[in-house]
């Protein structure tokens, strides 16, 4: 009879909090969007599934051992832990966790021991998060893989398109301003570090957004990653109206001259040039851009093809799976179901829109000032969202002029946007972090 009670009390039905039910539905929604609507499935399938796992009541997969002990332990255990921490046990789990986090390292060891002794251990997703994201390694490895899949040829053929990638990053910083504005008027409560992490959604670059959030605002990571990937999937819906509103039909019909041939040596040298520039000017962007350049060098140098193949296949796939599940661990109800999430979702789409607009406007300007014709539609690709944004530029261009193939021209600003948001990430970590 006791056993029946044990089982019943251990079951999810009894322990389910309303928030957990909601979050399981959110997880199912993400899976639906990924599987049926094709929203960035490589990331959103693991994230959505991880989100469901994280909210299984009583399983505690997303919590560290101590938090599991506090959430599920009996009053005796809580009393013992509270005594060790030198606080009262009746302040609730949040107060005890806060006391634990500010306790000295030896006290933490003793409390860890108490939790382990009572049979509580770190949840599976918590472990994944610690290894994959808290250490910073998974976003960096994915960035290495992205580097190994990136062709800088179109950018090297027309380096000025780097300015388009720069302009589109204004979406990031405008969003920072939006986030602090919402805080100033009292609608939200974001710190400047939170605002910076939210802004990076405008970079339209998943691993960069996750990396920055893990450093500056780990609590918001779930919402930021979900927003970033969802809006990247929505690029074909978000961008075209903005692009059409800011350009005339004549501009959209501009045909561009064919790109020059780029030699293999230039392609090998470029990642090294970029790396040196990072080393000289912005060391805080070194992890992200360093791994990116490393991946690209492995691809282009032609003598380590077996490493490059592995980076582009099994390594990036394995990392993606654990990165996604780890992000899912941040979709626990008590962290995700917060008004801040609504703010992040709203600010994220604004970031995409402003980035798109700035890219297009900069392209118009360059078309006016420059001697060679430049179709303003390729400016929107500067937000990155590789290669979706470049395809959108191509598609909108074809609408205006069926002989207008912008894809390769848009790949230049597209990869420039990746560099641009990594640079922005470095600046923000440098100014706000630490």
């Amino acid at each position, binding site marked *: 009879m006791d056993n029946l009670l044990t089982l019943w009390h251990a079951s999810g039905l009894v322990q389910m909090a309303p928030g957990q039910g909601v979050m399981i539905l959110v997880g199912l929604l993400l899976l639906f969007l990924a599987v049926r609507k094709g929203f960035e499935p490589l990331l959103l399938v693991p994230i959505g599934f991880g989100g469901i796992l994280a909210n299984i009541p009583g399983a505690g997969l997303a919590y560290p051992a101590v938090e599991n002990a506090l959430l599920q332990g009996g009053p005796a255990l809580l009393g013992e832990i509270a005594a060790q921490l030198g606080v009262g046990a009746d302040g609730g789990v949040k107060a005890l966790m806060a006391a634990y986090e500010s306790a000295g390292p030896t006290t933490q060891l003793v409390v860890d021991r108490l939790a382990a002794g009572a049979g509580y251990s770190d949840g599976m997703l918590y472990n994944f998060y610690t290894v994959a994201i808290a250490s910073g390694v998974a976003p960096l490895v994915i960035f290495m893989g992205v580097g190994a899949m990136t062709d800088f040829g179109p950018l*090297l053929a027309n380096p000025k398109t*780097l300015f388009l990638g720069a302009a589109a990053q204004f979406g990031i910083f405008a969003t*920072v*301003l939006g986030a602090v504005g919402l805080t100033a008027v009292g609608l939200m409560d974001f710190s400047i570090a939170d605002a910076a992490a939210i802004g990076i959604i405008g970079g339209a670059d998943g691993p960069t957004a996750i990396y920055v959030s893990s450093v500056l605002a780990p609590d918001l990571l779930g919402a930021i990653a979900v927003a970033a990937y969802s809006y990247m999937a929505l690029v074909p819906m978000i961008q075209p109206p903005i692009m059409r509103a800011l350009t005339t039909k004549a501009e959209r019909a501009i045909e561009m001259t064919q790109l020059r041939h780029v030699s293999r040596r*230039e392609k090998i040298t470029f990642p090294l040039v970029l790396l040196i*520039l990072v080393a000289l000017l912005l060391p805080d962007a070194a992890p992200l851009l360093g791994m990116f350049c490393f991946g690209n060098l492995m691809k282009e140098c032609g003598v380590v*093809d077996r490493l490059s193949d592995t980076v582009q296949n099994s390594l990036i796939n394995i990392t993606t799976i654990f990165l996604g599940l780890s992000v899912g661990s941040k979709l626990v109800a008590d962290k995700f179901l917060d008004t801040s999430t609504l703010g992040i979702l709203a600010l994220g789409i604004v970031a995409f829109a402003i980035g798109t607009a700035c890219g297009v406007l900069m392209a118009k300007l360059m078309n006016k000032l420059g001697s060679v014709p430049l179709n303003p539609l390729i400016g929107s690709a500067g937000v990155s969202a590789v290669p979706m944004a470049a395809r959108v530029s191509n598609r909108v261009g074809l609408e205006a002029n069926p002989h207008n193939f912008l894809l390769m021209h848009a790949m230049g600003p597209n990869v420039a946007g990746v560099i641009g948001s990594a640079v*922005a990430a470095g600046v923000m970590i440098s100014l706000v972090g630490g």
Partner: protein
Amino acid sequence: MQAGIIDQGVELMLYGMGTVVVFLGLLVLATTLMSRFVGRYFPEAEPEPSRAAPPPPAARADDPQLLAVIGAAIHRYRSRR
């Protein structure tokens, strides 16, 4: 702590966007110089040998039998793994 957060945000925007533009501007410069340097001093002797040897012309024909063979080869390879 939240006092002056607007100022912090404005500052972050100015310095951040400034750095992005300056950095990418320098990159334009460095890249252009690099391309010129490479083009002048290390031009490619011959048309770059494509590393993954392209299929011989015959294979590009849409000969259905050839396509069938290719399909089967790929299929058998995959199913073996």
